[in-house]
Structures are given as C-alpha cells and as structure tokens.
C-alpha cells in the first residue's frame, strides 16, 4: 500500500484547531515518518487527542494542511481517509461477532468476499485470536477486546494506524505485555503508528519518536533518550521522569559546558550556546545524577527524609540555603547510604548532568 518515494507518512503544516474562542491546538507543523512508531505524549487537555482526531477526520482543522504521503487529506471525511483508528474504549460493534467486526472495514470498502475472509483470518492470527472469531465482544476480556480492535483497524490495510490511549483501560500487567506486542506489531505491519498517551513510561518504552505536548502546543519532538536527557524546556523536564528544577547562576561558559553556581558551590552543566556568564537561569538535575557522601565541604545540606522504594532509595535533602532537592541511590550490592536521616551530607552532581533551561 505504500507510495514509495520519500514522502512522510503524515505531515502537518500550520495546523490550528479552535473551538469558538478556545484554541485547542496552536499552530503546529511537524512530520511523522514512514514506518515509525510515533507518540503524542501529554497531560489531559493538551490537545493530543484533538490532533489525532484531526488526522482521522473526526475533527476539522481550523487552519493548515494535513498531508498523508504527500496528499492533502484535510477536506476528506473519515470514511475516505486511508487511516484507521484504535479507539480508547475500543468501540467494538456489540451486535457483531469478532470476525464481523474485523471484516467491517473491508466490507465497506467493497473488498471481494473471499479476500475479506482471508484477511480476517490473517488479522486474527496476527493478534492470536483465531479461536474467537464467532464470539461477541461482550464475551471477551479487556485484553482480547483490545486485540480485536487492533485487528479490525489493521485488516483493511491502512497507510497509518492511529491509537487513542488504547492501553488505558487495561490493568498494569496486561498493559506492560501489550506494549511489547504493539511495538512488535508495528514492526511487522511496516506502517506508521501514531499513538496517543498520557503515560510517559508507555511512550518511552515503545516509541521511535515522541512529541511532548502541553496546553495545545508541541514542546519537543525527539526519541526517548533525547527528551529525557535533553529536555527542551521546564515543562518537558518536569513531565518526563522526576527532576529537580533549581534556580542557578551561570558562572562561566565554555565549549565543554557551563559552570553554574548553586548555593555557593560550582558544578558543570551541559553545554548551551545561548547563555552568558552572570545570567540567572533554571537548571534541571535528575535525582539519579546526584550522589550523597559524608560531609566534606562543597554543596551541603541535611538529609531530611529517606524512603525505601525497593530498587532505589529516595532521599530528600534540605540545602543550607533552605531549598529542597531529591536524590536517588540505587539499592545495589546491599550497600547502605553513607549518611542517615537527620545527618549532614555533601551533595555531588555528575559533571554535565545539570541541563540549563530557558527561563
């Protein structure tokens, strides 16, 4: 079904969505590549579902172009767009059995009957539900319903598959297993998956690239490592994983990084071109890049709280200037932290770990 060529799977050019006076999606332009697992990640109300629904055709863009392999589809109704959706609550037709559900799209496309049967069988084999063809959706477990929804959306051979928080209705274990399967299915099918979620762990484990969204805006696009290690702004740093956001002063700048001053001590931050010495800015420091040692000058504080988390210890430290930071120490080799609760400690930060963010 692919057009070949170099065209992107989905390309948004200046897409805007307004509901009356409310702007649900500010002007947005980016491309989703061919054969890519692309995730729209953000808190509820950030516009990610709106964006997905515009690609599907359920919402009309207020402005801009939506291109599918180079072709502008903005004016097409959903039934003429070669994309399929896996709905949040699956929306399996309750009056049809599994096979009829999976066949529905092809039936509407007037695919010849024998071919429909063949492709239904294929799709059900893909999701390992061959034996459930005659069941009603209500007779299936949540996980099975989810697979039927996937089979139904994949069977007509869409150019792009859209998934609207498809795992949110499953329990934790199933959700974790489905992540692996979904990624696997995307690789096998060879088409782009556009996946909407508010769950960062889901996004990080499956995606080739992630678009982090907030308040109707795409804040950053990149692979999992990039958005975790090099967050573009405060929102992304805070939303993805845990972090300490601290006001710091830039002491010096240089090609190997910037020296920053934090409560009198100096640390080396990751390089950033647009900061000048003497400037005040915000740094993001991940807790696992912070180490506590017995008091020895430098940045010091009191260990206020120590929480055992199994794989980690989480430590809350009150710095001498009154600010709080958290640190994580791995619970490896049965070692204990060199400082106990209520004791003073010196705080070490890995070189290059602090990221300077635009204010």
């Amino acid at each position, binding site marked *: 079904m692919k057009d070949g060529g170099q065209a992107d799977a989905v390309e948004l050019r200046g897409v805007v969505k307004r509901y009356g006076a409310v702007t*649900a999606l500010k002007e947005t332009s980016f491309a989703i590549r061919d054969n890519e697992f692309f995730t729209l990640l953000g808190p509820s109300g950030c516009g990610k579902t709106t964006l997905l629904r515009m690609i599907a055709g359920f919402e009309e863009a207020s402005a801009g172009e939506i291109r599918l392999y180079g072709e502008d589809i903005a004016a097409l109704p959903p039934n003429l767009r070669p994309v399929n959706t896996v709905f949040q609550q699956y929306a399996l037709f309750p009056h049809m059995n599994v096979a009829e559900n999976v066949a529905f799209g092809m039936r509407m496309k007037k695919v010849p009957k024998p071919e429909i049967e063949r492709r239904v069988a294929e799709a059900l084999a893909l999701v390992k539900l061959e034996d459930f063809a005659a069941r009603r959706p209500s007779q299936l477990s949540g996980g099975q319903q989810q697979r039927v929804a996937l089979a139904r959306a994949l069977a007509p051979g869409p150019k792009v598959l859209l998934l609207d928080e498809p795992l949110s209705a499953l329990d934790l274990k199933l959700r974790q297993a489905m992540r692996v399967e979904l990624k696997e299915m995307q690789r096998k099918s060879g088409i782009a998956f556009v996946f*909407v979620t508010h769950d960062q762990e889901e996004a990080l484990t499956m995606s080739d690239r992630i678009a982090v969204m907030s308040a109707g805006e795409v804040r950053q696009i990149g692979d999992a490592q990039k958005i975790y290690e090099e967050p573009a702004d405060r929102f992304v740093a805070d939303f993805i994983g845990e972090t300490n956001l601290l006001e710091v002063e830039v002491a010096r700048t240089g090609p190997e990084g910037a020296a920053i001053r934090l409560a009198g001590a100096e640390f080396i931050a990751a390089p950033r071109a647009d900061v000048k010495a003497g400037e005040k800015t915000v740094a993001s420091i991940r807790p696992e890049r912070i180490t506590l040692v017995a008091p020895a000058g430098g940045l010091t504080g009191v260990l206020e709280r120590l929480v055992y988390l199994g794989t980690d210890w989480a430590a809350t430290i009150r710095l001498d200037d009154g600010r709080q930071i958290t640190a994580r120490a791995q619970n490896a080799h049965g070692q204990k932290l060199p400082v106990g609760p209520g004791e003073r400690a010196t705080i070490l930060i890995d070189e290059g770990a602090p990221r300077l963010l635009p204010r």
Partner: protein
Amino acid sequence: MAGGGAGGGGRTQSAAFAPVRLWLLLPSWAVIAIFMGLPLLIMLVYSFLTKEFRGGVIWEFSLAAYDRFVFDRGLFGDDPPVLNTTYLTIFARSLIQALVATALCLLIGFPAAFYIATRPPEQRTLWLLLITVPYWVNLLIRTVSMKFLIRENGPLNEFLMGIGLISEPLPLVNTDIAVQLGLFYSYLPFMVLPIYAAVERYDFSLSEAAADLYADRWTILREVTLPAVRPGVIAGCILVFIPSLGAFLAPDLLGGARTFMIGSLIEEQFKGAAGDWPFGAAAATILMTIVLIALLLHARAEARREV
C-alpha cells in the same frame, strides 16, 4: 480524555446527524405544533368567545365563561349577579383530591420504590415488572375493575364482613374515598418508577457515612437519602398530580354527583346536555394554567439546584 475544549464528559457524544438535524426534527415539531400547540391557543381564544346554545361558539368577545365560575346571572345572563360557589367548589375539590392522591402515592410509593431499588439486580427487574404491568393495562378496565371490587355487595365488602371487621357493607362507591382510591390506584406506578430510578442511582456509601457519624436510620433517610433522591420524588409527584387533577374516569365511574371534578365538568360542556363550549374551554384553560405553573415551579427549582 484529552479532547481539548470540546466534548468534556467521559463518553464521546457523536454529532453525526448535525447536517440533517432540521429535517429530522421538523416532522415532530410540525405535527405537535399544528395539532397540539395551535389547538391549545385556539382553545384559549374560544374561552373568550360567546356561547352558542346548540354547542359551538359565536365569534364575539365575552368574559362570560370566566364570569360564570364566580357568578350566577340567570339562564340568559341578564339577572343581577349572585355569588355562585358551585364551580369554585369543584375546582377546590379537584385540587384537594389531586394533592391527597399525590401525598398518598408518595407515602406508599416511596417505601415501595426504595425497597425495590435495594433488591439484588436480578430481583429488581422482576419487582419492577410487577409494578409496571398494571400500568400497561387499560385505565378504563382498571377503573371498572376497582368499581367492581369495592361496590356495595362486591368482593371487598364480602371479604371484610367475612373476617368480621365490619358488620354492614361500606357504602364506598360514589364517595370521595372511592374516587381517591381510584386515583391512587391509577397513578401509583407513576410515583414508583422515577423514585426507583433515583434510589437506584443513589450512592449508599453516603448512608453508611451518615451511620458512621452517629445518625440513626430514619435520620439518614430524612437528612441524607431524601435530599439526594429529591429530583425523582418531585418528578413522581408531578407525574401523579397532573393526571389526577384532570382525571375523568375515576371520578366519573367511582364517584357521583357529589364528587364532581374538573374533568367531568369539562366533559359535560362538550359531550353532555349542558353544552357551553366557551365555559368548557375556560375550565380547560384554567386547568392547563395550573399545570404550567406547577411545571414552571419545578423547572425553576431544578435550575436553582444545578447552579
């Protein structure tokens, strides 16, 4: 859901038919507006016209129909006015009967609805079916059956005398009590169903919370449950009050001349010998006005609740 400023609520509400909305709604609007709305307005107009003695009206403005409720001006309407309480009494009796029927249905219907709504789900449908079946039975037949049951030498009196509760048959038929019994019997399901629906949705952990905070069960019912299911109770009261006020069959079949209600008074103007159309239209207009006032009060109370 990350629907932006759109839908909001939990489930997607489709607007698939928005482009043809007008065509879908037009038939019902047209039919009801032309054959129900317009006739109501014409009825209002008729109440201000002059009566034609053989039925129908003369197109001449007159307040005679409304005047007749309060004053007697003789057969030809030219005697000096004498205060006449006959019709006022009929209206008052109808109001009282409808209010008593509503109160009675509430008193009996609430515990029944509450009981049914607290059964296990599979039993609930059966109970509900038992309560609704009589509603599906022809009202005329139900009223006739009631008359058969309570008449002077009917099964009820025989039964009561048989168990020695009374020695003489109770002369029930043709009394206000018989009419009341008929109204109660006719409209009880209307009270039970909305209250049932409200209690079924009620979150009983609220009752448990109140019990935990030292309330006894009747206090819980009064202070916690009742306020929560109030919309259902009010809906039930309206559904009983409106048809009771305009009831025709129960007063006509179970009552007599001394239990006359608005419904019979109106019917007499159009079907009977009395034949005063403007007067009948005026009585119907007043009845409709009372109903509209009740509905408006309800709507305003609901609107205030939601703020």
